[in-house]
């Protein structure tokens, strides 16, 4: 229980101190408002974005909604393809050898460098944005799923073999559950990638979405809006990551949480 307390208290104190110092620095004139608008102004801006919106009429919720929709579409599409593919590649050594160079290459391509291509292939509408997010998430998820299967503790496979486990059950009842924790970790990393790609993906042909909001604000030196947008994206990503973690603890209650914490 003591620990729980500290888990909440410490971050709150640290963040509080940073915000106070920031505000004070601004009041005392050490920080330029254009570069570092003080927290008090960010709160006002947040209020404005919620009430009036920016650009005029597009409220924060609308930006948030469309961004979440794009991320989730791209993310889940990527995961839905990456999981079965990754399981197969991780399980069959030949497939792994065949695909390894391609995956290493595609993974290394910076997702946003594909932006011009995405426009040529999918136009400037929704499809190109979802494609970019999906692309970023896909390769990360794929390589994590492959690694998850390949890194299954060989002694578990050996133990199962001494118990006359046939090859199908060896996969479905041993390799698959053993790979799940790493797959979940991969899903969390992939989601992070989705959030990194979104701002860039929303730079093209739209004024809707948090990324577009940030780009619009840049044009008019509205640093405050950029920062609020940034924080909202951060909070959103954090909330979804926490949700995923909760889901994982529910679905995989057999994991040693204390060990997981220290890792």
């Amino acid at each position, binding site marked *: 229980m003591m620990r729980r307390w500290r888990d909440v208290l410490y971050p709150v104190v640290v963040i509080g101190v940073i915000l106070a110092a920031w505000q004070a620095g601004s009041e005392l004139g050490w920080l330029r408002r254009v570069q570092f608008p003080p927290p008090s102004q960010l709160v006002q801006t947040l209020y404005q974005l919620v009430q009036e919106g920016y650009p005029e009429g597009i409220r924060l919720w609308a930006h948030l909604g469309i961004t979440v929709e794009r991320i989730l579409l791209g993310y889940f599409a990527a995961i839905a393809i990456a999981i079965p593919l990754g399981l197969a590649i991780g399980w069959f050594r030949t497939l792994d050898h065949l695909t390894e160079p391609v995956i290493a290459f595609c993974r290394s391509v910076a997702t946003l460098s594909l932006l011009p291509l995405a426009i040529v292939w999918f136009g400037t509408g929704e499809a190109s944005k979802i494609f970019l997010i999906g692309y970023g998430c896909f390769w990360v998820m794929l390589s994590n799923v492959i690694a998850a299967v390949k890194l299954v*503790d060989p*002694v*578990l496979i*050996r*133990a199962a*073999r*001494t*118990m*006359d*486990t*046939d090859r199908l*059950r060896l996969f479905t*009842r*041993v390799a698959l*559950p*053993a790979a*799940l924790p790493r797959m979940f970790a991969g899903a969390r990393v992939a989601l992070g990638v989705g959030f990194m790609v979104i701002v860039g993906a929303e730079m093209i042909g739209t004024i809707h979405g948090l990324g577009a909001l940030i780009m619009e604000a840049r044009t008019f030196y509205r640093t405050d809006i950029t920062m609020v947008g940034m924080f909202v994206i951060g909070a959103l990503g954090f909330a979804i990551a926490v949700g995923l973690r909760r889901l994982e603890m529910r679905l*995989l*209650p*057999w*994991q*040693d949480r204390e*060990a997981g914490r220290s890792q």
Partner: protein
Amino acid sequence: MKTVESALHKIQVVDVTKRFDADALGLPPVLDRITLDVAENEFLVLLGRSGCGKTTLLNIIAGLERASSGSVRVDAAAVSRPGGGKGMVFQQGALFPWLTAQQNVEFAARNRGVPAAERRALAQELLALVGLAGAEAKYPFELSGGMQQRVAIARALALDPHILLMDEPFGALDELTRIEMQNELLRVWAARRKTVVFVTHSISEALVLADRIVVLAPRPGRIVLERRIDLPRPRRRTDARLLALYDDIWGALQ
């Protein structure tokens, strides 16, 4: 005469040599022409330093690894793959962490086609046998190292094996737990007679457990000493005859 021989010898290791690919550089083989018989219901201990090939030999008997030459027979039939009534307990338990103690034991029974209701009863019975009644619903991470090994033994027994292969099963446990587990194993073994091949590097563990101790020396892996121990169990660790044997074995290991 063949039938008589196979009745006497549950496991026959004939001229087994094992080289790893890396040994092509003129290094001596891991196992060099090992010949060894294990009688039905005998408790055999393979004893040796790290790297003497004892685990490799156990894995070859299990069918998890292949010999470079020579053969292993169980009930006069050549061993080609794991399973088939050869239960195994590994050093770190190798329990499935996503299954409870009960489910881990049931997993083994399921593969030999025991119906669900019987599986449940069997798993409970075996967990009780290894002293874990009440811990059925626990996941491995909630169990101590000694308790995990108890589950691993129960799981191996759920295969209804005629041979139990044990690869340093108590090697990762502290000394006191280890002594407890040795006593437990003897108790379980008295209740369920099996042919046991037990690998260890602990001389005192070998002396307490074995009907017969086979001492292996490394590079090349070979048998350097064999001793039968006819003392009744439970044995006092300080028994003068055991201490004399201890010196013999220690000498052979030098």
